[in-house]
């Protein structure tokens, strides 16, 4: 494989006191890949993701994101990634345009460039009428689509999505995944966590975390074959039922 590795993770560990949230996980992610990061609640997904985003220091192990070290070069990492957190995190008291302008500006884009990309984005999303509305007034599905668009607005190398479709209706979820495919096709690597097993099927490769460890890592098809089942639901159940931890 001579393809570019954008995330390399080796024995990455994060402890809080004597609780090991992330326990020696290792994986590589290739450019343009859609990588599904699965696991039960409390398995350590968000913690691992926060380390890779440069929001949290690991306790031990190694990892590079977009070629930068997660211990020392967090600010370099941040220039090259997009992040969409579990909590909706655009400003509800700013309009769609103002949100896009702000986040574009923060990533150092020129005003002209922001304007050009914004027009295109508003067109693609079909939000011409709502562009000057407060983001707080939008329905959840639109908010999530907008948040994703803002996360990739500065054309990062990798985008991290933490349960992006939680609480969203199936039609919008489908549209959301169309957007993800489109982004991946343009060369952006997608790192996504989800609890929906139908979404897991859309990924190129999947890892399943159980109690802080990566228990399985392969394409959905290989995983199903290996466990001799027909759906990802069953794969997940087989792997995660041994979990001792759950939220709180």
């Amino acid at each position, binding site marked *: 494989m001579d393809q570019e590795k954008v995330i390399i993770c080796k024995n990455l560990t994060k402890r809080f006191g004597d609780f090991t949230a992330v326990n020696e996980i290792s994986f590589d992610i290739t450019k343009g890949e859609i990588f599904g990061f699965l696991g039960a609640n409390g398995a350590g997904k968000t913690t691992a993701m926060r380390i890779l985003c440069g929001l949290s220091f690991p306790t031990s192990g190694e990892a590079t994101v977009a070629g930068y070290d997660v211990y020392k070069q967090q600010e370099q990492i*941040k220039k090259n990634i997009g992040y969409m*957190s579990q909590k909706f995190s655009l400003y509800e008291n*700013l309009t769609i345009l*103002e949100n896009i302008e702000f*986040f574009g*500006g*923060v990533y150092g884009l020129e005003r002209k460039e922001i304007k050009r990309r914004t027009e295109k984005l508003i067109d693609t999303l079909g939000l011409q009428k709502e562009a000057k509305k407060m983001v707080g007034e939008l329905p959840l599905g639109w908010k999530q689509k907008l948040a994703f668009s803002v996360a990739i607005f500065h054309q990062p190398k990798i985008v991290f999505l933490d349960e992006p479709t939680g609480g969203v209706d199936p039609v919008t979820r489908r549209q959301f995944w169309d957007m993800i495919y489109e982004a991946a096709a343009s060369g952006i690597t997608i790192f996504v966590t989800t609890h929906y097993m139908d979404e897991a099927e859309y990924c190129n490769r999947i890892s399943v975390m159980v109690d802080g460890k990566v228990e399985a890592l392969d394409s959905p098809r290989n995983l199903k074959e290996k466990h001799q089942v027909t759906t990802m639901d069953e794969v997940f159940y087989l792997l995660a039922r041994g979990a001792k931890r759950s939220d709180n």
Partner: protein
Amino acid sequence: MKVLRFILQKEFRQIFRDKSILVMMFAMPMIQLVVLPLAMDFDIKSINLSIVDNDHSSYSQKLVSKISSSGYFNIISVDPNYQQAIKHIEKEEADVVMEIPPNFERNLVRAGKQQLSVYADAINGTKAGIGSGYLNMVIADFNNEVDFNIQKINANNTNQGGAIEIRQRSWFNPLEEYKFNIVPAVLVLLLTLIGGFMTTLNIVREKEIGTIEQINVTPIKKWQFISGKLIPFWIIGMIIFTVGLGVCSFVYDIYPKGSLWLLYAFAFIYLIAVLGLGLLISTYSDNQVQAMFVAFFFMMIFMLMSGFFTATDSMPHWARVFSNLTPVTHFVKVVRMIILKSSGFSDVKMEFLYLIGFAGLLNGWAIWNYKKTS
């Protein structure tokens, strides 16, 4: 700098969009400046007095008429005995009871001395204290006249009671009006409130709704984020300070006697210091309730320890040290000095250095404690 412009644009949009905060920021100062100094008038004029006159002599009559003509007292009753008079205090009708003993005149003329009893209702401590203080002054005055008479009668009695007379003159506030003391202090309080609370709540709010995480995952620099939060409130603080000075001159006729530039230079630095404190509190709090409590704690200390109500010079030594550790103390002092006394820079140099120190320390600490990666 380019990034900072985007951040400032966003902050101003959000601040001016929240109408309730906007009203609070501009209406609150006006109301506080107009209402507080009027309500906090410590000049006490109508003290309710009950008198028990057991002597019924011409001297006791003279004393009573002197008291009633002083203008500070309402004589609400003249009672035959102490038991009845004290009832008025119990019913909160009287603040002070004065009892003139029997043989008041005879003892004064013959022995040259006589005791009087004054009973004050100390539940309202200020009124009682000031009331009995006034009463003492009137009695002392009466005393001088009496001494004079006695000296004429008894030439061999060399009582020097009236030889030294004290004439008091109050500098910088000749009429001893309370407003000169309190209005500049309320102005300081306002800046402290705006600077301290607004930044704290603003940043902690971003923590609460989770947008701060989105900020932390961008390549924004710490100084950019913090400047983006400080500058808008700094500008608003300066505007409020200006409006406040306007209210001072229009409503209270208090015009700064000293240099306006110097006053603004101090407001400039002081705001940076309190904004820094707000920032610091916000880096240690996770939600608005926590932040409010901590900010409130500091505000209470500032109000009570900064010389706002009580002179710092009369505090015990440890309290004075403590008081000097709050930036408010220095600013209250300087504002009074510049506005009332026309002090120049050389008079307030030390305070200037103190405030610069506070500004540097608090902001430095806040920047150090704000972590994009935890």
